[in-house]
């Protein structure tokens, strides 16, 4: 790893870089614990957007003028950073997309069209976000393929033994998340990838919840596709990455047609551009991609290990403290978790908890977290989810616990 490992963070200094954190909500200091939905943006990212539009806004790749050149360089710089960030073999393997949702839809549509046949099987897991369920349902409907699901155990871990019984020569593709947005479970993706490859199936990893938290090395993992959303990695909304192995993506048909993705166009025959441009039709989201590069640099400047260690400390502390409260049930107690704490309080609806916490300036998520099948499996309508980031503190956890304590005392 090129990034220096540090054991403790200067959280105060980090917080200073996030303007949004310094405000009152409903009369109290904002406590932002909805990081799994989207995390906040540091000055470097915000300033980069302003800088782009103020100083070198231009369409990229085609222009020969100075601004176009500058914008193209900055845009491609993010691709270089992204390649390093996930240790891809080549920049040609980095496709800019709108986010994880579009990345998965791209693979489902393009790979599905080229390689999925009637009777083939696609395996997903019971922990998946709707984004990693619905596109595969489209493919299965379209190709008359069959969708199979890896079971979730009571503690929120995947049942690998059952996975071994699902996978067979019929399996063409396995799509699972690196970490669960609802429960925080970190999945044994290396094992899943190896098992799938032993059966000649390709593997897509939904890395939405890993991007800002876990080390990612796509070559070591040997995954075929890996998806990231910028907005969950301190970057802007509206951009993200699809990583795909070059030899695979060369065999896949384009997803959308338009400018940028072509070599030459005539009414008789159009030839497509090389990777990565083949999959980047139209004027891309230039400003946000450039700012996404600043977000990657921000993560690198702190180091993933240091971030993960800090968030883990908050998770352990919050979990210990919440368990001292009466009527609270922690939902999802996998051995390996990212900083996501899902819970319910007996007899109190998650909406009420969310709204009462908001009244004290504490932002959490309530509901099914776009994982309805998982909620059904766990027998809950929804949960309250607190999710931590590098700028959160133990003191904020204390405020959160105090808020919950008041709610329980009031309603019980």
């Amino acid at each position, binding site marked *: 790893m090129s990034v220096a490992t540090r054991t403790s963070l200067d959280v105060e200094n980090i917080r200073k870089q996030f303007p949004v954190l310094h405000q009152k909500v*409903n*009369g109290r200091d904002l406590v932002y614990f909805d990081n799994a939905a989207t995390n906040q943006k540091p000055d470097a990212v915000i300033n980069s957007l302003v800088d782009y539009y103020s100083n070198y806004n231009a369409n990229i790749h085609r222009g020969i003028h100075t601004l176009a050149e500058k914008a193209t360089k900055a845009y491609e710089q993010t691709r270089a950073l992204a390649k390093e960030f996930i240790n891809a073999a080549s920049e040609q393997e980095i496709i800019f997309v709108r986010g994880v949702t579009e990345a998965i839809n791209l693979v489902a549509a393009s790979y599905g069209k080229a390689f999925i046949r009637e009777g083939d099987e696609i395996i997903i897991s019971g922990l998946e976000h709707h984004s990693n369920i619905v596109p595969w349902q489209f493919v299965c409907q379209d190709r008359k393929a069959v969708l199979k699901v890896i079971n979730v155990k009571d503690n929120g871990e995947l049942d690998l033994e059952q996975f071994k019984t699902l996978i067979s020569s019929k399996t063409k593709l396995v799509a699972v998340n690196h970490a669960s947005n609802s429960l925080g479970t970190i999945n044994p993706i290396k094992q899943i990838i190896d098992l799938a490859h032993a059966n000649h199936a390709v593997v897509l990893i939904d890395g939405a919840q890993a991007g800002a938290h876990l080390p990612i090395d796509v070559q070591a993992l040997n995954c075929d596709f890996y998806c990231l959303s910028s907005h969950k990695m301190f970057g802007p909304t509206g951009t993200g990455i699809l990583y795909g192995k070059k030899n695979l993506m060369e065999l896949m048909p384009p997803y959308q047609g338009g400018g940028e993705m072509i070599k030459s166009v005539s009414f008789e025959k159009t030839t497509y551009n090389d990777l990565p441009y083949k999959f980047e039709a139209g004027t891309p989201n230039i400003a946000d991609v450039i700012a996404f590069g600043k977000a990657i640099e921000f993560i690198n400047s702190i180091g993933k290990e240091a971030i993960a260690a800090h968030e883990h400390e908050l998770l352990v502390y919050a979990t210990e403290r919440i368990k001292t409260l009466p009527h609270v049930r922690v939902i999802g107690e996998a051995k390996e978790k990212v900083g996501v704490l899902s819970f319910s309080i007996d007899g*109190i*609806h998650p*909406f*009420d908890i969310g*709204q*009462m916490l*908001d*009244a*004290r300036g504490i932002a959490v998520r309530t509901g099914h977290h776009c994982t309805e099948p998982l909620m059904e499996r766990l027998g809950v309508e929804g949960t309250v989810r607190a999710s931590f980031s590098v700028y959160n503190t133990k003191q904020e956890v204390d405020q959160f616990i105090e808020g919950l304590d008041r709610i329980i005392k*009031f*309603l019980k």
Partner: protein
Amino acid sequence: MSKSITDIQQEIIQEFSLLDGDMEMTVFYIMELGQKLPAMNEANKTEDNVVKGCQSKVWLAAKLENDNVYFEADSNTAITKGLVSLLVRIFNGQSPEAILNADLSFMQKIGMERFIGTQRSNGFAAMIKQMKLYALAFKTKQDVKS
């Protein structure tokens, strides 16, 4: 003669003004009001009586007694129940006509939108609409009789 819809709204505005705009106190107060809402007859908590369009589950039933409308309601979330209790308090014992013509200005005066949010406000609108629909149905019945 019971209090008019306008009088009750005035009372509510008065009560909420005592909370001084403090969000937490307001939310607790709303939940307290919900806790005081008379229990709904379990038999009336049918699928038919679920108000469509609410994020949380809300049941609403109505009956006409001595030419006045009486509502029964419940919700699976405490805050919604409190909000619903305000409507029940305003409309209970009123004539169908008065309910149909009611202008619920209290909502804006107590800054309702601050604590119902965009998700809940749709549900709240659905709730009011449903109450007015009941009133309309009762009024139509009355008109037919007379």
